[in-house]
């Protein structure tokens, strides 16, 4: 195998830029900004981190590449580049909403970890080889565990991180076990080769074990029931910007790779129009395979996520349970496993990530002043901080799926893709109906938040919230993005479809 390292470096330039930025932020913070006030340190190093992200984005825009290095170890095509750009965008916003926080004085380390997690996600997106997938997953997860524990002074943060870590470790073990079985069955680590080796084997019992293990591992990453238990605690306990990153960037990358593994690796030969290994989750026509497994996970996630979110009194926990529900909707997109479905899934995940970062940003603003994230702390926010309240309204309505915001189009597109896949007999209609019914339930709790903000009276003695200008600008930008992507979804969808065609999925 001939590898030109120079070529590889060129392909991996965006990742390299981000790694170098992470190191730069670390070094600058250790050497020159150590003695400054925390706020300035955050601004200086944050700007370095942002510059790195922007540089990597610009690199990808200017130098589009299309190559498959080392037999799927590192695949660069238009699709992965779009997803990477989206990931870097989410990272950028995460850094921006952290600028105002005071939970740590290890600012360089904090930013470096965020960037390293982003690198892990970028490699994950590019991987088509199970070894590489596992390594990148671990790089991402380990960085995120530490990020969750970053508030050293807070017991909850430590508890959240420990829970996240223990669950994550176990899920990683399951994934690894599943992957090793897969290797044993097919003798290959490349997804395409695995698919070819499994082509005429049908549903081997051992393959079923491998498949379930892998679904379990990814189910943990995307916080789907029954592997969701870490999510509410981690979201609530972790520092808010870390939680935002776990909820957005990590989710986008995980969903993308989940769909990719399932689509490339696990379709198998076709009989009667049904992929043998994928099976079918169509109503009254279940064929065993991985789609019914994912269907069960999706149904449970939508039901539990939405119903439990109703009774939450902490906004972060509410967002966490709603995240579980959203994972359920997105799994419908995974199940549809077609090119169109991937486009809809990426659109959904990216817009969802953006909205969630925004929502966490607002929570961070409120939390900084009232020291907790209870619903009651949001009472009368519209009078104390009108701009932030307006942004929160946009985020909540988008999450609830109200047109013309991005959340509506995301749901619409995922459901349309799912229906199209089961086309001749609308097999997935039952899931879509359930999803729509459950998103109607979700209105209730999103409106609860808005009710506190807009209807409830201010607590006595509360004064105007001073929100830093930067914070307002960032939240405003995210809100505009949510509206824009909702009104003109073709900005993203057009690019996605073109790149999926180019990538040949």
């Amino acid at each position, binding site marked *: 195998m001939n590898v030109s390292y120079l070529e590889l470096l060129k392909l991996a330039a965006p990742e390299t830029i981000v790694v170098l930025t992470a190191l730069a932020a670390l070094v600058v913070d250790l050497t020159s900004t150590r003695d400054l006030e925390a706020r300035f340190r955050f601004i200086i190093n944050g700007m370095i981190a942002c510059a790195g992200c922007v540089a990597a984005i610009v690199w990808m825009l200017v130098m589009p590449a299309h190559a498959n290095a080392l037999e799927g170890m590192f695949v660069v095509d238009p699709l992965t580049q779009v997803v990477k750009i989206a990931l870097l965008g989410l990272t950028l916003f995460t850094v921006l909403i952290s600028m105002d926080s005071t939970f740590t004085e290890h600012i360089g380390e904090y930013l470096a970890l965020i960037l390293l997690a982003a690198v892990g996600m970028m490699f994950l997106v590019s991987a088509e080889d199970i070894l590489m997938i596992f390594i990148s997953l671990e790089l991402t997860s380990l960085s995120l565990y530490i990020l969750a524990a970053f508030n050293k002074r807070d017991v909850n943060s430590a508890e959240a991180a420990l829970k996240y870590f223990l669950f994550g470790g176990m899920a990683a073990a399951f994934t690894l076990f599943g992957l090793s079985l897969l290797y044993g069955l097919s003798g290959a680590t490349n997804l395409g080769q695995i698919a070819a080796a499994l082509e005429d084997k049908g549903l081997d019992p051992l393959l079923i074990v491998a498949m379930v293990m892998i679904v379990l591992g990814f189910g943990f990453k995307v916080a789907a029931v029954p592997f969701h238990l870490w999510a509410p605690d981690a979201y609530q306990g972790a520092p808010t910007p870390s939680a935002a990153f776990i909820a957005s960037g990590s989710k986008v990358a995980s969903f993308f790779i989940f769909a990719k593994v399932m689509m490339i690796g696990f379709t198998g030969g076709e009989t009667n129009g049904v992929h043998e290994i994928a099976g079918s989750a169509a109503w009254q026509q279940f064929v065993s395979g991985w789609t019914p497994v994912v269907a069960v996970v999706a149904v449970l996630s939508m039901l539990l996520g939405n119903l439990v979110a109703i009774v939450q009194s902490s906004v972060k926990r509410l967002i966490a349970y709603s995240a579980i529900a959203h994972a359920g909707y997105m799994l419908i997109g995974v199940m549809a496993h077609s090119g169109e479905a991937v486009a809809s899934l990426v659109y959904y995940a990216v817009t969802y990530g953006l909205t969630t970062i925004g929502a966490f940003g607002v929570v961070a603003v409120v939390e900084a002043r009232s020291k907790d994230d209870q619903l009651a702390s949001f009472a009368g926010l519209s009078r104390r901080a009108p701009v932030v309240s307006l942004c929160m309204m946009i985020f909540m309505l988008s999450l609830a799926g109200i*047109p013309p915001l991005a959340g509506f189009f995301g749901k619409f*597109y995922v459901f349309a893709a799912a*229906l199209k896949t089961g*086309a001749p007999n609308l097999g997935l209609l039952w899931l879509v109906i359930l999803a729509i019914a459950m998103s109607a339930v979700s209105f209730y709790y999103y409106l609860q938040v808005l009710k506190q903000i807009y*209807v409830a009276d201010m607590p006595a003695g509360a004064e105007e919230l001073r929100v830093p200008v930067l914070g307002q600008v960032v939240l405003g930008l995210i809100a505009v993005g949510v509206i824009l992507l909702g009104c*003109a979804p073709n900005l993203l*969808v057009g690019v996605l*479809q073109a790149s999926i065609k180019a990538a040949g999925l």
Partner: protein
Amino acid sequence: MNELPILTIITLLPLVSGIVVAGLGEHRKLARGLALTSSFLSLALVLGLWRSFDGNSGLLQFVEGPHAWIPTLGVQYYLGVDGLGLLMVLLTALVVPMSLLASGRVADRPHVYYGLVLFLQAGLVGTFTALNFFHWFIFWELSLIPAFFLVRLWGGAARAAAATQFFVYTMVGSIAMLLAFLAIFLATSEPGQPGVFDFITLADMARSGTLEQLLPAKLGWIDLTARKLLLVVFGGALLGFAVKVPMMPFHTWLPAAYSEASSPVTMLLTGVMSKMGVYGFVRILLPIFPQHINWMLTPLLWLAVITIVFSACAAFAQRDLKRMLAYSSINHLGYCLLAVFAVAKFTNAPQFATEKAAALNGVFLQMFNHGLTAAALFWFVALIEQRSGGLRGLNDFGGLRKVAPIFCGLMGIALFSSLGLPGLNGFVGEFLIFKGVFPLAPWAAAFSVIGLLVTAIFILTILQRVFNGPLNEKWSKFPDLTLGEIALLIIPIALMFVLGLYPRLVLDVINATAVQMVEQLKF
């Protein structure tokens, strides 16, 4: 096309001014002034549109687009109005300033209130001008959000439950409709080419029978026969509109929402929002699903009759003026439904074409007239509430005629218009509807007449209990209308007379549209 995109401007104007008003902060006078200015500007624009509209053509005019919006999903930016659309846009432009003028007493966060009203106007205008399902649906849903908050934040004591019920009902209807159109979208999509969302093309496909072949050929759902599948899709679309109008038995949200919302908001709900449902029936169901309405004709006709008769009886049983008028709204729109269903009746006999056109003209007129009259009536109720400190029970008053003769006279005119007295606007629409429906569906029309009778009874009861009889001493100081109020109220009242005596003013614009719609109803 380099013409001015006038419809876009009419839609965006309230949206932009809504943002400005809501962003201003709590300057009550300024917010109100700006909102009123914007609404009058819209009215002026729409009147300009009305003048330059060619009434001899039933075709879409002022068309914008279709411009590609989301090409991958076949979504286009496509606007246009025919006589019906224009009439509804005009109604919106009329009722919004009426409602704004009536809501002078909003003290709590006026800037948000006026902003929301303007957003609602934008949503309504968008709904009445959009010609692509996706685009139309966005506005349809968008109008729900401000309406929800207007009921939720400025309503009466039980507003929370009413607003939630209103929201959940309409949402369920919308979702059913969305699924139905998704099915159509999937059925009409070819590999490499998105499906069809455009109402005009869909109507063409329905006429040529393509839609009917495509749906069962491309879709299926647990061994449904082709006919049943078509009915399921039709049922989904029907539910969305039936909830909005509302058609019994999907009406239970309405009395609560109308009576709990503050009266100016109710003016908007009943004056314009309820027309969205009827508009959907005429613009979407009738051209795209005529066959399906026809299959279900008998049950649908009887549902319309039930709506008409029962809501009139229910209104008679109420003791709260707003609830009475709410049920009376259901009753009035029931006539529209009756006519729409009757028009879809399968018959190609040429003599029926005139009857159908008459019935459709009646529907359009009734929509406009009811919007105007109901808005005026709720305005009067708002004035009564202001004077009585919130009381509005049927038996709380008595003999007001003696202390407030002008009030009584003007409200009496509005009530008589609602009753359908010849010479006032309410009569023309109902007359045309019955003229058209009798030959098409004699039994249904005959039973609906009971509704007319009961309406007359309960409206006379209102007049008697509130304005006549011995003066309730409590109200011996009940102030009559001020000059300013008279000046404002005289406009809708005058319109009632004008339309009652000279309905051609509107008929000239809508007749060609109605005739064309009937022509296109080929089976």
